[in-house]
């Protein structure tokens, strides 16, 4: 495994009686796209906030880039964050927003100009750069949120629910952006409660609920370990039959041999099923 870009060692954070993150440990390799999957309130955003130094863990440590706490501005400079809450200035143009945050990251002069152009191009907003943010659609604002996060070419990118409330077109555009970042070798931590996003984008996924890490592995391994069997549903004139099977094709042949089928459906295990099996409830509960 490549050297770690982010290490969380037994971090814990409580707000009064509520334990938001409970003894969470992770090690994310350089160049990895890592998914943190869990329902709302699972502790994903609190984990991101501790990773970027906004919150101090009650116990445990956060190490970024092999040696440094994010409470230090120098370490934070290695991180790019697209927060879940859109935190941009409505009365500035798209370009002014990106330029402003790039300056806070220490960019200036020609490099500032180049990186701002690259970031706006990257998210497909160059042509709308001079429009005020208040005129942008929700999806465009999410894309600008991403541009602000990547403008300084961070080593570690934290994307907290980056597709919440966006239209399918913008969602696809964001997926394309993340895949491009993956190709370029960026380390990405992607929090979501959409299992299809984690399944599509992430090499490894950590499943969290009530602040605890329930499982951590590649998507295939999680499914194979916690997803259970495929479910074959066949429909005949006399009714419907559901069968759990590890080999849906063989089971389908066996069912067909027993008599003619009107229709059939195979439900393969996915991360939703993994979460259901691990917690007893659905991701969107």
């Amino acid at each position: 495994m490549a050297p770690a870009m982010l290490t969380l060692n037994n971090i814990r954070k409580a707000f009064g009686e509520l334990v938001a993150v409970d003894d969470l440990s992770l090690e994310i390799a350089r160049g990895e796209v890592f998914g943190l999957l869990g329902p709302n309130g699972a502790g994903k955003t609190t984990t991101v906030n501790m990773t970027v130094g906004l919150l101090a863990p009650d116990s445990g440590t956060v190490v970024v880039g092999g040696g440094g706490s994010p409470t230090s501005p120098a370490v934070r400079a290695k991180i790019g964050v697209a927060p879940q809450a859109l935190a941009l200035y409505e009365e500035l143009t798209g370009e002014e927003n990106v330029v402003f945050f790039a300056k806070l990251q220490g960019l200036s002069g020609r490099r500032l100009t180049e990186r701002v152009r690259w970031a706006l191009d990257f998210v497909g907003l160059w042509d709308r750069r001079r429009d005020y943010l208040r005129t942008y659609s929700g999806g465009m604002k999410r894309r600008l949120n991403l541009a602000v996060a990547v403008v300084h070419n961070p080593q570690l990118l934290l994307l907290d629910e980056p597709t919440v409330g966006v239209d399918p077109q913008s969602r696809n555009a964001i997926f394309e952006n993340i895949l491009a970042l993956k190709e370029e070798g960026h380390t990405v931590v992607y929090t979501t409660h959409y299992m299809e996003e984690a399944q599509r984008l992430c090499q490894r996924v950590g499943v969290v609920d009530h602040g605890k890490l329930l499982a951590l592995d590649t998507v295939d391994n999680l499914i194979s370990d916690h997803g259970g069997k495929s479910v074959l549903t066949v429909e005949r004139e006399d009714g419907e039959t559901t069968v759990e099977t590890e080999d849906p094709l063989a089971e389908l042949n066996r069912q067909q041999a027993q008599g003619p089928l009107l229709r059939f459906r195979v439900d393969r295990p996915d991360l939703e099923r993994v979460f259901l099996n691990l917690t007893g409830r659905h991701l969107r509960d």
Partner: protein
Amino acid sequence: MSKVIALAIKDLRLLFRDKAGLFFTLFLPLIYCVFFGAIFSGMYGGGGVSGMDTAVVDEDGTPSSQLFIQTLEKAAEINVQTADRAQALDSVRRGKNVACVIIPKGYGAAMAKPFWGGSPTLELGIDPSRRAEAGMLRGILTQYLYLEIQKNISDTAKLREQLSGALEEVRASEDTDPVTRGALMLFLPALDGFLGSLAQAKDADGDGDGSFAGFPRAKIERIDIARKSKGPLPTNAYQVSFPQGVIWGLLGCAAGFGISLVVERTHGTLVRLRMAPISRAQVLAGKALACFATTVALQVGLFLLARVAFGVQPTSVAMLAMAVICGSLGFVGIMMLLSVLGKTEQSAGGIGWAVLLVMAMLGGGMVPLFVMPSWMRTLGNVSPVKWAITAMEGAVWREFTFAQMLFPCGVLVAVGVVCFTVGVWAFRWTEEG
């Protein structure tokens, strides 16, 4: 420092794009300065006195009444419009004129009898809603009436003619009591004799035309207290209105930037700023710098306008710069304190403006301190507004020395430091606190 400047520039951009905020911060103070300067322009000289619109009715129609009207027309205190009685009364009723002056029949005849049987009378009608001007107008008319009488008795030949007429009337009068009659019969010929000998003496000297220069008249002469007396006074109403108007700009900046910190917190941008590689101190320094730059620019702009358009010449530019900088420092601190007064934009705005309005009321930002009772002026010492106005006035017309400037400026800087420190200490970086 470049990051602090980037933060400040962002805030200035946001200010200039918020049209309502810009109005309250920049244009409302300007309106205040000009409006109140214009209203009080007659109080301090320099700005000129605007005359009271007055309808004048000549029912007498004699040369004396016409001369009186000509005198009134030349008077700066009133603007004369001649009319008949009905028109004049109607114009006052409608509020078109402040008052009407009617010269009734018999005015000219009475003026011709200054010693016996004459009493020139005027009728004065005043708009009931303008009672404050009634006394002033009565005084002005009395002044010009006596001026006319004096003109009458300044002509020796005319005066002797009037004396002769009066003497004949006294002799012919049978119902006058004997004592008064006897006194007049002694006094009037004696005066006639005095005037005759005076005319002869003047003619013998060859230095006059035999006219009598008149009895000595009481005079009220205006003294330029600003330069000669115990303390300076403003010579132009705008010298008073501009410092007061500037205060509203300072209050607007403090409220606007204080509320913008709350907005940054509630909208989440403050959290995003903290994710950037900058310290909390830099975030607040950026806001403070933007507020400071705006307050300085506002004051410089308004005082330049005051100089160019309204003739407000500061007695010391260096002292004014000192007042501007210290005032800005004070209100930057107040801005920081206001940002901790409310959790939401609405509560911060409401509480913030309530506090600022009390400061303005006590400190002379609404009503000049000199019209307040003494206990309220003393209470005003607790308001930074008072010290900001004092510092500005010290540089504009009070002719403060550097040592005299130190106290108000020191108070402002101290207020700024204390408020900023308390504000930073109490500041909530997240909505949760």
